[in-house]
């Protein structure tokens, strides 16, 4: 890398100065400064801290010089603030020379790609991919689930103490389970108030991966089954003492439905009353209250009734969810990737393989259709193991491989169940399962199939995809796109996109949104949980719409509110109103950037934070590079500057030149959100002074955009090439988990243009991204 520049430097110098070579080396500062090149200025004035090629130096400035300022911005910045440890700054002339030099040599994105071409690196499955893959490999031996269009649960009401077919009096769909029958029954004509039972059945959709707590509240007997038709998660069929709340915890993978069955009995169980006593109607708690509700506590939420949008009347087959926990993936480059391994990770893969082998052995009959104790069933079991390995490796096994992975185990193991366990262990510990990019021959269609499924689902291909690859029908772009279109409506795709939007909005990680109760007494944990629901509903709106329009994200003037949120944010809804779309403050708000969840999460517990908001707009939305602050600074507490409002205080604190390098970009963006306080509520006045939410942004092409408030920013972002490019790049990395420039220096620009041409349709963008990634890998020898 260095050498060509040396040569060029010498050549340029000789041409310019016409002097002897030696003089250059010994006396760099020759008489006429104007004749120095940018590189010489850099060596002379900058390399001390930044290293000879801008790679950084340990002692002074360890980060490499890289970023996205334009040459003009760089020039201005260097002239005004460099070197930052001396009062005398770089002259305008020198800055004008050195800026284009570093821009071309290593600073700009183009230079970086040229200097160090990105490549598709061998990567292991990420944790999410590992969990999904194992669930789907086992799921491939079970029927698929149709989520269907009917929301709610199938309900049956029985005039008997336990659900019994011949006593069924009512059959209907209940949108949710939240009933209070007082001292009566759901239908006094058909059901005895002292002896009836109910069965609710269907599936529940887990939107995110994590631990879910299911809660049933009732005065009577209940049993709740989730993802396991045989073993209840909550067994309170024996109602004992005065407990009216039953809880059970379960880890679930996001984007998947789980079978759910709730059985309820308002009756005396155990030994039946004698017939004689029955005629007398032996009373059982005649005055007892009868109510039942089915709630859950989702990750990042407070307990709430499970609403219809998460329920289906269709019953899902069981899904195997690994309980083994993995160490978290490396996210240091902005997206999860699997380019590093550790002992802890390897141990987790062993645990996961053991856990899966145990599960397969336990369910062997159901999964394989064979009886492991019956010698005649051996061929069926071998076939099952071969299919298992093929699902896991994402390709058919050669005869040798069947011999190696399957037959050898059957020959060596003492019994069939042990043989199956060993095959599962060997397969799930094999690099063929654990690494995404280990495949077959270049151009192999099974590789493409796996790229499509990992791209859209973070999982292994389904049977259909494997069969298309087998038939050789995954060769052309059209064939690939047609498969992707088939895969797009799958709940797993939705889950992946939804997670992406939350990551993009910096809302994916658990966040403590709690606020100072003295300043915001209404802002309870339930309100924070509702706000998140509201944001999720907005995102679902965009993704549900076939146009999946990026601009809708930015410009929509409706928000999802319920009674509790309406009360806090000053909208007009009854206190108990369920979530509904409300045209809310359309003159002040537009799209997700003005969503109170986002504004509240980018704020302190009592005041707004223009810096957090500005950094979010700069980095996530505009995709600009910001370095961490050179010196850490605690924000000036509001109380110390009672005369200043937040904007003035932040402006004052970031005034020093050392700050302005970044804050010149951060502050004017962050200030545009100042009309919203620490919980994202609109305000006109702060500390008795009118709020000023004007701001600006200097684009990469050097244009200054002026804003008057957040709505202007939203309109700009919706139409800006820069924000679209940032969105494309982040979605690419989220979907593919490889650097976008490994797919060509023009890939990003090209995808952004296609995005714009496709009316900024996010679904189409995802399809373009994944289709592009399905090209043969370049890492193989």
């Amino acid at each position: 890398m260095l050498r060509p520049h040396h040569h060029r430097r010498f050549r340029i110098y000789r041409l310019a100065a016409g002097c002897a070579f030696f003089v250059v080396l010994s006396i760099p500062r020759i008489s006429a400064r104007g004749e120095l090149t940018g590189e010489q200025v850099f060596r002379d004035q900058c390399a001390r801290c930044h290293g000879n090629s801008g790679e950084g130096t340990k002692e002074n400035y360890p980060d490499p010089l890289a970023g996205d300022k334009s040459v003009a911005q760089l020039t201005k910045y260097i002239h005004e603030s460099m070197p930052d440890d001396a009062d005398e700054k770089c002259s305008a002339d020198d800055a004008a020379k050195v800026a284009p030099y570093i821009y071309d040599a290593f600073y700009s994105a183009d230079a970086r790609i040229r200097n160090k071409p990105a490549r598709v690196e061998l990567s292991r499955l990420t944790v999410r991919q590992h969990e999904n893959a194992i669930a789907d490999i086992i799921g491939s031996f079970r029927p698929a689930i149709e989520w269907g269009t009917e929301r709610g649960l199938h309900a049956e009401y029985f005039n008997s103490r336990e659900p019994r077919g011949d006593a069924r009096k009512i059959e209907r769909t209940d949108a949710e389970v939240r009933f209070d029958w007082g001292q009566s029954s759901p239908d006094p004509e058909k059901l005895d108030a002292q002896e009836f039972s109910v069965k609710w059945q269907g599936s529940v959709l887990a939107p995110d991966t994590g631990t879910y707590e299911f809660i049933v509240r009732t005065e009577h007997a209940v049993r709740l089954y989730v993802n396991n038709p045989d073993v209840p998660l909550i067994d309170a069929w024996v109602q004992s003492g005065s407990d009216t709340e039953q809880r059970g915890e379960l880890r679930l993978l996001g984007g998947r439905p789980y079978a759910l069955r709730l059985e309820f009995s308002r009756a005396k169980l155990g030994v039946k009353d004698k017939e004689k006593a029955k005629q007398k109607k032996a009373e059982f708690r005649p005055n007892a209250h009868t109510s039942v509700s089915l709630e859950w506590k989702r990750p990042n939420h407070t307990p709430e009734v499970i609403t219809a949008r998460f329920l289906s009347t269709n019953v899902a087959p069981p899904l195997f969810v690994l309980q083994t926990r993995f160490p978290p993936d490396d996210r240091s480059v902005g997206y999860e990737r699997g380019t590093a391994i550790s002992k802890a990770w390897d141990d987790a893969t062993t645990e996961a393989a053991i856990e899966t082998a145990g599960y397969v052995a336990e369910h062997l009959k159901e999964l394989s259709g064979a009886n492991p104790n019956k010698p005649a069933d051996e061929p069926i079991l071998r076939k099952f193991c071969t299919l298992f390995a093929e699902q896991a490796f994402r390709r058919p096994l050669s005869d040798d491989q069947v011999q190696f992975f399957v037959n050898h185990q059957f020959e060596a193991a003492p019994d069939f169940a042990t043989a199956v366990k060993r095959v599962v262990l060997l397969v799930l510990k094999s690099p063929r399962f654990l690494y995404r990019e280990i495949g077959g021959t270049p151009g192999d269609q099974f590789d493409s199939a796996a790229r499509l499924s990992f791209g859209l689902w973070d999982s292994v291909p389904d049977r259909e995809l494997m069969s298309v690859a087998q038939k050789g029908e995954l060769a052309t772009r059209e064939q690939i796109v047609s498969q992707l279109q088939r895969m797009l409506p799958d709940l797993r795709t939705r889950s992946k996109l939804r997670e992406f939007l939350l990551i993009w909005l910096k809302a994916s990680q658990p966040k403590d949104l709690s606020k100072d109760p003295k300043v915001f007494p209404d802002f309870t944990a339930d309100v924070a949980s509702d706000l998140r629901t509201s944001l999720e509903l907005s995102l679902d709106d965009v993704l549900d719409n076939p146009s999946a329009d990026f601009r809708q994200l930015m410009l929509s003037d409706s928000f999802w509110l319920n009674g509790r949120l309406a009360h806090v944010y000053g909208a007009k809804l009854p206190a108990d109103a369920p979530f509904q779309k409300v045209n809310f403050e359309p003159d002040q708000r537009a799209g997700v950037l003005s969503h109170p969840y986002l504004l509240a999460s980018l704020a302190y517990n009592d005041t707004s934070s223009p810096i957090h908001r500005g950094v979010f707009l700069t980095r996530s939305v505009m995709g600009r590079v910001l370095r961490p602050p050179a010196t850490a600074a605690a924000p000036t507490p509001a109380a110390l500057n009672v005369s200043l409002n937040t904007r003035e205080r932040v402006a004052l604190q970031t005034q020093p030149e050392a700050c302005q390098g970044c804050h010149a970009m951060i502050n004017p963006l962050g200030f545009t959100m100042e009309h919203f306080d620490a919980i994202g509520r609109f305000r006109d006045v702060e500390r008795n002074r009118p709020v000023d939410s004007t701001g600006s942004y200097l684009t990469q092409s050097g244009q200054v955009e002026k804003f008057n408030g957040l709505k202007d920013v939203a309109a700009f972002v919706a139409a800006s090439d820069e924000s679209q490019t940032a969105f494309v790049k982040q979605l690419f990395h989220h979907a593919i988990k490889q650097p976008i420039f490994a797919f060509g220096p023009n890939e990003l620009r090209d995808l952004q243009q296609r995005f714009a041409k496709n009316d900024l349709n996010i679904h189409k963008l995802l399809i373009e991204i994944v289709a592009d990634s399905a090209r043969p890998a370049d890492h193989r020898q």
Partner: protein
Amino acid sequence: MTTYASRREFLKGLGLSTASLPFVLNLPSFAYAGEAPARRQRLIVMFSPNGVIPKNFWPDVVGNEFVLKESLKPLEPLQKQTLILRGLSDKIRGDGDNHMRGIGCLLTGIELFPGNIQGGSDTPAGWSKGISIDQEIKNYLQASATTRTRFGSLEFGVMVPERADTWTRLSYAGPNKPLAPIDDPYQMFAKLYGRQKDQENLRSVLDALQEDFKKLESVVSAQDRQLLEEHTTFVRELEQELKASDARSADHAVPQLEPGIKETNDNMPRLSQLQIELLVSSFAADFARVATLQFTNSVSDARMRWIGVDDGHHHLSHEPDTNEAAQEQLTRINKWYCEQLAFLAKRLADTPEPGGQGSLLDHTLIVWTNELGKGNSHTLENIPFVLVGGGLNFRMGRSLDFKGVPHNRLLLALAHGFGHHLQKFGNPDYCGDGPLNDLT
């Protein structure tokens, strides 16, 4: 010289709390010099249902010169290690019928909560209001590093029905916290030895796995090979770890289990034998020091065709005393249960105490009990308690009659036998006068 039942008691005697334990143990010249380590103590509670036939069960003579009646004949070879306690009564009343309270209050010594489960008479009830004595002792042993084991306690069952209600649960981890016994020997085997089997399987595929890595290293680029090479070092480490773990467990072989025994009524004798073998080997491996062995459930209607009894047990137990045929069959049923007890005791007696003196039985107390005194009257007076083994230093080889003492006092005595000097257990009204006297 005062003897201390445990190190904790010893330290208490010195006025030291357990918090100072590590410090004390670091002073070899102090305390333990010359003293043998505290011996292991174990408890097994064995349950069988529906009462007994008193005239064929209780010895006529109190003291050590007693003769075993028909139901207890299988204990003859173990008579010197046997202690028969007559006259203990389950005084707990409240909600639930006698079968429910019989099993639910047997080891908890406290009432049932009001609930929705209706018995054959009385008011409906729920679960017990308290912890059971086996779990109390388990918690006590698990609290100290010197007596802590992998599981603490194991709950074995034989033909326990697949339903959770007051009649099927004997042990409680706390109020409203019934523990389900494991009655499938294969499930119990997996719990005890699954890990060792997993490691065995893992070890058996490691060579193949390493071969697979080698094959793949040649098809990836030089840059990517580095990652795979790093990965193979982890595989080699795994191999080393498995070897080390083998060496550690070499002194305890995994028992062989006859495969494919289904849980059916007629398989009960074989299931019983498998569970007893697993119980003995789990104690030999020191996986736990407390266990329950629950045969069927309260009100069980098992049909013991293998001893020529075709009628259901519960059904028979309701027959009046005048029905001689029923009396004889019920005696036979209890004798069969006693044979299970004798087999368990013999297997323990045949197994040397690991790292100690004598046999496992010398360091284990088995308590065989029942939810009723007598089936046809449903009485909770004279609950059967037959004790075998030397685990708690009780004076064995005797037959005693307490003439109506609350059974809570026996529960207290069991705790005290472990050095856990509880003042009260279960309902305090029945704990007056403390642990049963005359046992040690």
